[in-house]
């Protein structure tokens, strides 16, 4: 190994620290600038709006970060799976009751995660495998919903979707809780270690006797569970489910992971970064919305930032890891 490569690597390590710091710093800067320029920004109501928006993206982004950390890039099926699980939840809850609905959705999420994991392992191409599953999930959602709107009338569900314990929405409590749990999983749990090692060097993980294929499945299961939670919250909040729910949200989830600065080749970073990324994007969106900036500009900016971030991190890390 050349000394340049070593130097690059230590820079690379610092880059990741820098990346998460940069996310926090940007959040602070945006908050300050927005607060100074837009009076409506720094209100409690708006703050709650931002946090709730960040929560729904963030919960899935945390799940997505497991997939990325395990070295499997992204899943493009999260939004479609969300729609399918939302429809299932609405159907089961309407016909039986809330616990049954939640149980069925969680079982469905685990099943979806395992199936996708098997496909990803067999093909070695997570993007294509999950793209295909996404189409099937979306199609199934349409089949099950008869392509109509499913309504539920369940007070317990409504409480889950709209309650604000201590003034903060349930979604945001869950988001914070999951972010903390995710940090514990990656730092303290055996599974977290296995995910990190599989992502850091898949070949070496196999050679060390790790069951990389099972780890991939579990990462996708965790993403699916995250999706399931968001699906339940969404149905509970609006008391209805449609097959086109979450359409186009996949890139919000991916953008959150990327903006948070998680290493795309896996093995470096924590889900907390994805959570921060989600907050950052929600802030930006809210700020631009209040200032009547178009969503197109936002998306362009996010896309460009993503491309730029990918390239810069990639260069700093050294071309040949």
């Amino acid at each position, binding site marked *: 190994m050349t000394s340049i490569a070593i130097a690059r690597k230590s820079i690379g390590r610092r880059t990741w620290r820098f990346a998460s710091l940069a996310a926090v710093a940007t959040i602070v800067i945006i908050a300050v600038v927005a607060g100074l320029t837009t009076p409506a920004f720094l209100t409690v109501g708006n703050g709650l709006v931002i946090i709730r928006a960040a929560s729904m993206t963030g919960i899935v982004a945390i799940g997505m970060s497991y997939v990325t950390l395990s070295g499997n*890039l*992204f899943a493009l099926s999260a939004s479609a799976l969300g729609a399918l699980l939302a429809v299932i939840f609405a159907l089961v809850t309407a016909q039986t009751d809330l616990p049954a609905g939640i149980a069925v959705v969680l079982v469905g999420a685990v099943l979806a995660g395992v199936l996708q994991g098997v*496909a990803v*392992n*067999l*093909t*070695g*191409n997570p*993007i*294509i*495998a999950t*793209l*295909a*599953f*996404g*189409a*099937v*999930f*979306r*199609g*199934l959602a*349409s*089949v099950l919903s008869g*392509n109509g709107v499913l309504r539920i009338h369940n007070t317990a569900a409504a409480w889950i979707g709209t309650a604000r314990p201590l003034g903060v929405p349930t979604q945001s409590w869950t988001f914070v809780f999951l972010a903390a749990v995710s940090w514990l999983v990656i730092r303290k749990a055996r599974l977290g270690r296995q995910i990190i090692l599989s992502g850091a060097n898949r070949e070496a993980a196999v050679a060390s006797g790790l069951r990389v294929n099972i780890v991939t499945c579990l990462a996708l299961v965790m993403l699916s569970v995250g999706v399931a939670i968001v699906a339940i919250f969404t149905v509970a909040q609006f008391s209805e489910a449609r*097959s086109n729910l979450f359409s*186009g949200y996949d*890139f919000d989830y*991916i*953008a959150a992971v*990327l903006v948070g600065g998680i290493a*795309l*080749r896996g093995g470096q970073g924590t889900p907390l970064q994805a959570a921060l990324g989600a907050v950052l994007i929600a802030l930006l969106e809210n700020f631009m919305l209040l200032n009547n900036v*178009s*969503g*197109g*500009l*936002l*998306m*362009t*900016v*996010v*896309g*460009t930032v*993503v*491309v730029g971030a*990918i*390239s810069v991190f*990639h*260069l700093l890390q050294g*071309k*040949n890891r």
Partner: protein
Amino acid sequence: MNCFNPRRDLAARLAMMIAIYAIFAARLPSYYTIPGVASLLDGAFLTGVIALGVGLTMIAGEMDLSVGSMAALAGIISIKLAPLGILPAIVVTTALAAVVGAAQGWCIAWLRINSLIFTVGTLIAFRGLALLISNEQTANISLDQLDATDFLSVHWFFVSPLSLILLIAALVISVFCSRTLWGREIFSIGGGRAEARAAGVPMGRPLIIAFALSAALAALAGAVLSLQAGSATPLGFDAVLLDAVTACLIGGVALRGGRGSVLGIIIGLFTLRFLVSGIASLGAPFWAQSLASGALLIALILVEGGYYAFARRRAFAKSRLAAG
């Protein structure tokens, strides 16, 4: 050892396509009447043209995920450029896209970055650009120009400008792929990147060309369809990647790169079209199409991926038999 025979492989895929055609043609008159065939051909235009480009990047061992966004962006741009005349609008849009695609290919080659990662970023950025340029509104062509786009919708028997463009694009790409140095270089870096590099194949050029063509073809499809319809929405073409990749995989383009042919992609395209529009014509709702193409794609990748796992297992089983 069983050797991969491209001719036999294509023949099998062709047989499958004909079988699917026959199954539906037996029930649907629209599969052999002139207007029916014309609409089948026109329906294949979008997926077909884009599949040619995506197929090239897959053959190079990469994948361009940004084609859907590029088509939407090109649709908006071509509508904005329509006052220049319809043909110039198409040409300029396609050329612009080619330049952007070449830049994308250059970045991927220079950074040596996984194209799946890079094009996810451009996918978001192009879509955002489309929203930005269009002000998040559906862009419409001005009324006095509406007549000028009529020539895109004429039919001579079952041939239309759309099917002609698809045919010409397929022929050009086919010749490029099989008969030019640059085309063969794309195949060589997909078949074995390290080997090709050691043999002296430059890494930049094939990637730049593959991604330039992929973007240009996506833009061509987006521009032509948008002008034909007279309007473009910045959120359009979001499902086309799935269909394009499915067509490529049915047509024998390998996920691992290096293998594939234009003829195969066309066969894959029509296998998919016959199946999907057949299901639709038999009265299944529109979402059954996405279900069908998704399930088909899953089956395909499982077969391709499963084959490697199976081959390894068999080698071990055989050896155990011999050892025991």
